[in-house]
């Protein structure tokens, strides 16, 4: 029988110098970190970079994690903070390089469709509040329970339910509307 190590065990093992334990933590929280970053930056590549940086910072500052059993929420708080900083930095970059044009790249038709679909979803998600985006991504992309979302985002289960319900209703309306 394989026993899955707890977050607390993995944190302690990492602090004792076992990097493989931290790789397990990265594997465990990768999707949640990406979802939370994506909810803020609304761009796959930026979200991946933010999530990676948050993991690296978590590794460097792991000794400051006061409750190793709550590594997940601790990490996700860092992801959110980094993602918000990234958004500000992107907005500054865009303001400076307003006239820059992105050269078009040739893509297969299927990939173009998927990219268009992702674009529509991102545009619709952008109409939600940040907390609604975070909740709907963790619920409908990561399949987290309301208890997990509440613990991960530091909100109550009741608020998690309310945000998810509002987010789904808004998204359905936005996605049913034909894109211009």
């Amino acid at each position, binding site marked *: 029988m394989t026993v899955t190590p707890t977050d607390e065990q993995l944190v302690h093992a990492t602090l004792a110098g076992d990097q493989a334990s931290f790789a397990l933590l990265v594997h465990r929280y990768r999707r949640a970190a990406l979802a939370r970053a*994506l909810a803020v930056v609304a761009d796959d590549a930026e979200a991946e970079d933010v999530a990676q940086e948050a993991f690296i910072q978590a590794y460097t500052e792991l000794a400051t994690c006061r409750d190793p059993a709550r590594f997940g929420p601790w990490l996700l708080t860092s992801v959110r903070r980094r993602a918000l900083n990234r958004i500000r930095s992107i907005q500054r970059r865009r303001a400076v390089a307003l006239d820059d044009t992105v050269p078009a790249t040739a893509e297969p038709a299927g990939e173009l469709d998927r990219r268009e679909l992702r674009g529509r979803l991102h545009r619709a998600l952008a109409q939600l509040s940040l907390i609604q985006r975070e909740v709907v991504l963790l619920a409908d992309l990561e399949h987290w329970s309301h208890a997990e979302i509440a613990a991960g985002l530091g909100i109550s289960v009741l608020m998690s339910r309310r945000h998810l319900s509002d987010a789904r209703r808004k998204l359905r309306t936005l996605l049913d509307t034909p894109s211009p």
Partner: protein
Amino acid sequence: MTDEPLDLTPLDPDRDDGAADRFVAGVMNRIAARPDPHPVSIGPLWGAASFATPIALAATVILTIAAMALSRRNGPAAPETVAESIGVPGEFRGSLAANATVSGGERR
């Protein structure tokens, strides 16, 4: 029904094969490129071994010198004659000395 889950699979980070492994490897490579803030712990007595050898050597030398000094001070006195040094019993040593004197006298 508005509370049915939405299909967000186009946003799935694992839509590409190997995305998970690439992500984990990316993080771990970036960590490996930095100075390690969590070096391998080797217990509270780490370093004691490096001190133990010179201390043990010094103690051995000091004890050996002390033992030699003590044995010189407390040990039996050095033999005064060749007969004593080769272990001739005391009762014979006197007669040996007398004979030597007599024969020496004869030679003269």
